[in-house]
């Protein structure tokens, strides 16, 4: 027995040794990025439920040697298709969990939970909120044009990048896994990071595009919505929208199903499970498996950098579009609609609505916009799902 040889082999199989291999430096950069996301999630509390999972998945999958035990990125980007038999027989934990992302199961399950947590009441009481929800989706299509103009992306990739502007993580994942799975990691990371940064990104544009008088506009309470309306709404939306755009059915159907569980009043246990246990489990699996896809070799590219920049542009354009239509409604309604609620049309629920509320309170301490902003906010969820359905229908 050659003890020296054993120790040498042991040393060469360690992650520390593998850092020294060509492109080992990329892993170090990704580990630093993972640490930064952990800092943002834990210390700054930016979407911690997702960001901590994403960051830890990123960390695990970029530790040389250890990553082979957990995740095989090459299996998932194989142009010939995924061999699920091999994944189930020889895959690591993160490979198995990633099946839920690849098949689009997690985003749909998350939408059931989101639906069960969403109150569509503010939107039902003020139907004009839907226009603001639609307006904010203009950011998606403007980024699509920008991405196409760069010439660096295929149609599927441009569509996937553009959906970052929808500020809706599950929708971004659902669309990207179908149109451009090779760029899922940067898109998921960009989408969730920007959603977390909404309190920093939106206010400067809100101040820039609205006057003090507009920001101080007080909105009156709208009509009370009956229980029956809340029950009928998810059923009607499912039928109307899914017949119009069948490709939107998995997302919108799940969103409305979750909402029906909440509103119908006879499935309290299911609603409770969807809001808590199911949502937590899926968020856990989704976060860590999406983070695992950010492998240095495929993540650290110029494309990723362009995606990050375009994603940021998308968020800004979506906010601007919402605010401009908000200003238009302010004029049309003769000051009855505060344009600040326009920026809540991006679907990051309830973060964007909270930002509108805080901005309103800053200029008028008695101006509570939260419930008014929730209307465009939940309309934005429907709007981004419709936009994704359209892009899926075009590129399928």
């Amino acid at each position, binding site marked *: 027995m050659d003890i020296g040889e054993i120790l040498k082999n042991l040393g060469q199989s360690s992650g520390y040794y593998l850092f020294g291999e060509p492109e080992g430096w990329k892993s170090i950069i990704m580990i630093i990025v993972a640490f930064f996301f952990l800092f943002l999630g834990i210390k700054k509390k930016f979407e911690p439920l997702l960001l901590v999972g994403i960051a830890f998945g990123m960390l695990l999958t970029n530790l040389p040697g250890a990553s082979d035990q957990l995740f095989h990125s090459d299996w998932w980007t194989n142009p010939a298709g995924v061999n699920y038999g091999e994944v189930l027989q020889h895959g690591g934990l993160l490979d198995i969990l990633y099946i839920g992302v690849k098949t689009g199961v997690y985003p749909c399950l998350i939408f059931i939970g989101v639906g069960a947590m969403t109150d569509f009441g503010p*939107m*039902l*009481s003020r*139907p*004009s909120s*839907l*226009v603001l*929800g*639609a307006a904010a*989706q*203009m950011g*998606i*299509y*403007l980024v*699509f*044009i920008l*991405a*196409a*103009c760069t*010439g660096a*992306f*295929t*149609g*599927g990739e*441009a*569509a996937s990048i553009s959906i970052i502007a929808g500020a809706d993580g599950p929708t971004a994942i659902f669309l990207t896994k179908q*149109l*451009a799975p090779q760029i899922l990691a940067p898109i998921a990371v960009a989408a969730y990071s920007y959603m977390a940064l909404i309190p920093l990104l939106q206010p400067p544009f809100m101040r820039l595009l609205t006057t003090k008088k507009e920001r101080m506009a007080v909105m009156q309470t709208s*009509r009370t*919505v*009956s229980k*029956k*309306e809340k029950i*009928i*709404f998810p059923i*009607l*939306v499912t039928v*109307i*929208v899914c017949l*119009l*755009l*069948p*490709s939107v059915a998995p997302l919108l159907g799940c969103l409305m199903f979750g909402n029906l569980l909440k509103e119908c009043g006879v499935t309290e246990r299911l609603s409770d499970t969807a809001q808590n246990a199911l949502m937590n489990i899926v968020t856990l699996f989704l976060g860590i498996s999406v983070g695992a896809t950010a492998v240095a070799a495929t993540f650290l590219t110029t494309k990723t950098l362009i995606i990050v920049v375009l994603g940021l542009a998308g968020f800004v354009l979506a906010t601007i579009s919402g605010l401009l239509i908000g200003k238009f409604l302010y004029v049309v309604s003769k000051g009855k609609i505060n344009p600040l609620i326009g920026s809540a049309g991006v679907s990051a629920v309830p973060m964007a609505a909270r930002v509108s509320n805080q901005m309103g309170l800053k200029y008028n301490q008695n101006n509570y916009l939260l419930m008014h902003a929730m209307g465009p906010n939940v*309309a934005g969820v*429907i*709007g981004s799902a*419709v*936009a994704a*359905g*359209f*892009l*899926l*229908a*075009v*590129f*399928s």
Partner: protein
Amino acid sequence: MDLILASVLNKDENVAPLDALYLALIGIAVVFVVLIVLMLVIWLMGKIFDSSAKLREKHPELNQKLQNAKAKIMFWKKEQAQAEPAQEVANGTCGELKLINVEERDAAMIMAIVADNLGTPLNELRFISIKKVEDEK
């Protein structure tokens, strides 16, 4: 609409900027159309619910009639339930039970234990008397 568009573009090919512009215009139009349709549906639904509520407020007699109709339905349901043949009672449940130095609560417990031990429903058993046996000192 999506069936028409489905075969237009390949996801693995680049999109020309002009095509992207057309596509974006169609896309935003689709989003606006869908959400405006929903807006109209919600508005219509709200009008229907509001008008029925107002109608009830304006004409309390209609509301009264509705309440009467509901009450009638409830009464009819009760009658139906009463008209249903009563469950047959096993022989032996009738008659009187004599309790000697035993409280009703204890007697009920004893009868339940006996029925359980025998594996016979309580209403099929007949108890004549239950007497407390004093302990010998």
